[in-house]
């Protein structure tokens, strides 16, 4: 009689201790995540807003003592701004119209249909990310330049065209949208492929049983379920295109298409003194305002997240749709994309690495083919260090970003109904670094860390930290979309079995998110390998990386060496990619 109450009391005590422990680990992690994200994001954000109200024409933001709204006035009263806004809108809309439907279509084809060689294509589709965008754009110029573009030359010969230019001209708004759109496909594909892969087929099967065809099912069932992932992708890429300068820099000047990033370029890449951080930051603040508006819309549209959950405890295995007669055209589309976006730029890069200067293939240039570029790079005393630093940076940045992104996405998705608003705060704040120009992030890090008591200034870790901040937006978007499709009931079941929160996260949630995590890991690693603006601001002789070496070589006219190092970088990235794919394959095999 005495034993029972005592056992019950002990049991209650144990349970409350266990709940307290669970709560404390979770609360502690939430607090830590909030702290880290806020800290990482606030540094560049503060610099952006601070610089935007400082007079910085010949001064750095922290030197200037004049508070002014002049930067905003300069932007808003400039007579060219109306056309800049219009061009930015058209360029963004056009690029997204080319890139996103193609990415969605490819993701659907490669993840949900039974087209042949889809695993190979799914791997190859990611390779364009590893090719430096400058060289990729140059490859497109070699194809579509109105005079010497290969496609134009062939078409003129075939069609008996009399002029020496056309029919296509890459130096137009549509040319810019086309090239930019194709550049978006691999990253956008990565962002949504995992969601397609993780989809519960039961709704689609019911639709099929109700007599709807594959196309109708996709439009009426699949895409609506994918809404959070698609919206997240759309919002992210609106900001990415507004901010991107590679294509406007190479094609837009000629086309006389001035966009917002061109204005930021002029403000920040002043070879005639100090960058005009005030003006660049005022422009960045406007992009920030657009991002905040988009985030608000996103949160309104995905308020009832459980509607989009498709991975439940009931077991699922997405079926592969047989496209029938459409299999051949669908496969052809994928192959054409891979040929255009992967093979061609890589060939141009490899060809450039074998030539003393860039020349179109001909008998003369064939005679000049040499491996000298590959030998000469090893004469550089820093190349081995640069390769090592680059690999370390890629792995550390990826690991840190993915860990942070998983935690952010978990709290964003699972605490959405909590009244404290922390979920919305995390979702919004983690997206904001995307709006801050990289050079401003670099300056903010110099400003803060040169005074920081912990000596990470001048080390590789400061670059890793800056990159983690920068890539948090993409990784947290992708992980949030993927997690939204995982129903909470699996985690609830685990918790009912008294598994601690951390173990549930590690043993239940993370394995379900593994495909998205691997994709994000690869995306961050590849982007970290290529990142230049922040690295240029923060590196030193000890922390030299491959991207800065390639850039220096290119600037000094050593195109063969720059291209040779580019080829090596692509091969390293391909190794990472291959590693990820082998891991996924082994995981799938063990699952089945």
């Amino acid at each position, binding site marked *: 009689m005495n034993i029972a109450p005592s056992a019950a009391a002990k049991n209650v005590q144990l349970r409350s201790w266990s709940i307290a422990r669970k709560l404390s680990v979770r609360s502690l992690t939430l607090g830590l995540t909030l702290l880290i994200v806020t800290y990482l994001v606030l540094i560049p954000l503060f610099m952006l807003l601070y610089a935007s109200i400082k007079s910085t024409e*010949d001064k*750095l933001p*922290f*030197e200037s003592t004049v508070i002014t709204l002049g930067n905003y006035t*300069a932007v808003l009263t*400039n007579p*060219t*701004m109306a056309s*800049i806004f219009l061009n930015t809108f058209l360029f963004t809309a056009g690029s997204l119209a080319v890139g996103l439907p193609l990415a969605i279509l490819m993701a659907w084809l490669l993840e949900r249909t039974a087209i042949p060689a889809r695993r190979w294509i799914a791997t190859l589709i990611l390779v364009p990310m590893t090719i430096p965008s400058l060289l990729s754009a*140059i490859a497109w*110029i070699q194809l579509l330049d109105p*005079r*010497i573009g290969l496609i134009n030359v062939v078409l003129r010969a075939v069609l008996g065209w009399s002029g020496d*230019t056309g029919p296509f001209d890459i*130096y137009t708004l549509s040319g810019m949208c086309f090239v930019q759109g194709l550049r978006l496909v691999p990253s956008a594909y990565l962002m949504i492929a995992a969601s397609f892969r993780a989809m519960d087929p039961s709704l689609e099967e019911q639709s099929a049983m109700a007599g709807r065809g594959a196309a109708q099912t996709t439009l009426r069932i699949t895409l609506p379920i994918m809404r959070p992932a698609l919206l997240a992708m759309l919002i992210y890429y609106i900001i990415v295109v507004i901010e991107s300068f590679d294509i406007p*820099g*190479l094609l837009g*000047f*000629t086309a006389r298409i*001035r*966009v917002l990033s*061109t204005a930021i*370029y*002029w*403000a920040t*890449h*002043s*070879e*005639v*003194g*100090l*960058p*005009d951080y005030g*003006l660049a930051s005022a422009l960045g603040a406007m992009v920030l305002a657009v991002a905040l508006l988009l985030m608000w819309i996103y949160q309104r549209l995905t308020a009832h997240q459980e509607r989009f959950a498709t991975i439940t405890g009931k077991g699922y295995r997405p079926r592969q749709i047989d496209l029938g007669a459409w299999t051949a055209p669908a496969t052809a589309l994928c192959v054409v994309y891979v040929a255009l976006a992967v093979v061609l730029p890589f060939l141009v890069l490899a060809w450039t690495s074998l030539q*003393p*200067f*860039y*020349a179109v293939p001909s008998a*003369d240039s064939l005679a000049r083919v040499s491996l000298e570029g590959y030998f000469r790079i090893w*004469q*550089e*005393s*820093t190349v081995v260090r640069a390769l090592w630093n680059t690999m370390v940076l890629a792995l550390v940045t990826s690991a840190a970003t993915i860990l942070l992104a998983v935690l952010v996405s978990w709290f964003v998705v699972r605490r959405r109904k909590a009244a404290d608003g922390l979920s919305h705060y995390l979702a919004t704040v983690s997206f904001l670094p995307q709006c801050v120009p990289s050079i401003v992030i*670099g*300056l903010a890090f*110099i400003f803060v860390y*040169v*005074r920081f008591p912990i000596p990470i200034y001048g080390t590789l870790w400061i670059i890793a930290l800056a990159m983690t901040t920068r890539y948090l937006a993409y990784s947290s978007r992708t992980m949030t979309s993927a997690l939204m499709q995982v129903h909470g009931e699996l985690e609830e079941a685990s918790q009912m079995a008294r598994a601690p929160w951390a173990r549930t996260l590690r043993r239940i949630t993370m394995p379900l998110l593994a495909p998205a995590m691997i994709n994000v890991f690869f995306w961050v690693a590849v982007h970290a390998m290529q990142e230049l603006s922040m690295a*240029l*601001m923060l*590196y030193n*002789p000890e922390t030299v990386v491959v991207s*800065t070496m390639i850039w*220096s070589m*290119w*600037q*000094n*006219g*050593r*195109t063969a060496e720059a291209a040779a190092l580019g080829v090596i970088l692509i091969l390293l990235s391909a190794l990472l990619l291959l590693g990820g794919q082998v891991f996924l394959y082994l995981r799938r095999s063990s699952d089945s």
Partner: protein
Amino acid sequence: MLNARSYMKSARTVAIAPIIFGLLVWASAGYAQEKGRSGGDAMAQLYAAAKKEGTVVIWGPTDAIIYQRMQAALDKQYPGIKIEHFESIPEPLVQRIIAESQAGKPAAVDIIQSGSLRALRPLIDRDMLAPYSGWEKDFGLDAVYAGQRFVGAYNLTLPIAYNTKMVSAQEAPKSWEELAEPKWKGRKLIIEARLVPFAMLGTEWGKGKATELTKKILAQQPIIVQGGTTVANALAGGQVSIAIGTYAYTIERLKKQGAAVDWVPVSPLPVLTSAVGVLKTARHPNGARFFAGWMGTAEGQNIRYATTGQANEVGRTAIGAVAERIKAAQPAIILETDKTFATILEIQRELGKMLGALR
């Protein structure tokens, strides 16, 4: 008599003249010897102090290979000085030097180098560079600017370049104004987006004329890209007939490699100055002064020229193929100095607005 007196006078003059001439030669030789000895002594003293410091840290955009070869040459002639080089463009370096200095942690760098004088202007504005008279006095260098705070390392000449397969030497433009002729309309020109040559022309012609010509040339539908290498590649690859914004030494190097390109020493000819300056906070100030001066000597110049084709292309110490062609053609030179860079900057900002700059 008059004739005899006159003859005697002439004979006396003839006899005295060689003596006076001899005295003059002796005196000037002695003076030169003395000056040389004082320059040599000063250099020897500077070298001794530099050797004591042991190291020189230089930041700038020059290829590492140049410094590797300079190190080998120094080791033979002036052993005991180790060059530590960090290759990067000057703009972020300048910002970092300013930020670190203001945080009370001066950057661990002795010499800053840039491809143009203008890029280092913020350091002059903040009085962060140390003047040194020895570059002129002891090393005999003439490209010394901004109150002896900079010494020229090499020049970058900005000519009109052309593809010899597409344009003959006769057809190639001989003046900047010719670029506005209708025959160059429609993607036949490529121009580097920063429009530096046109801004420099403005210092000679005035802002109005330079702006007007730039407008006319931009109306020719040229291809406009950022980066001199991209411009040079497009020309060598046959994408365009004419290129503006690439350097004469780059074209000379491409020619040697077999590319069908050449350049016109058009008048006036813009010439940029790549300069080096020693920071006031240098940890190895003597080594920095010595190495900065030595780079400008014939030996330093020859190593740089043999490695990359860069050298002083105008002035007393000019060497190399570009310098020879400039000497032969005798164009008017628009040299970037501390006297002109403020004007170049102002015009460049104005021209930038044509391509999307807001102010």
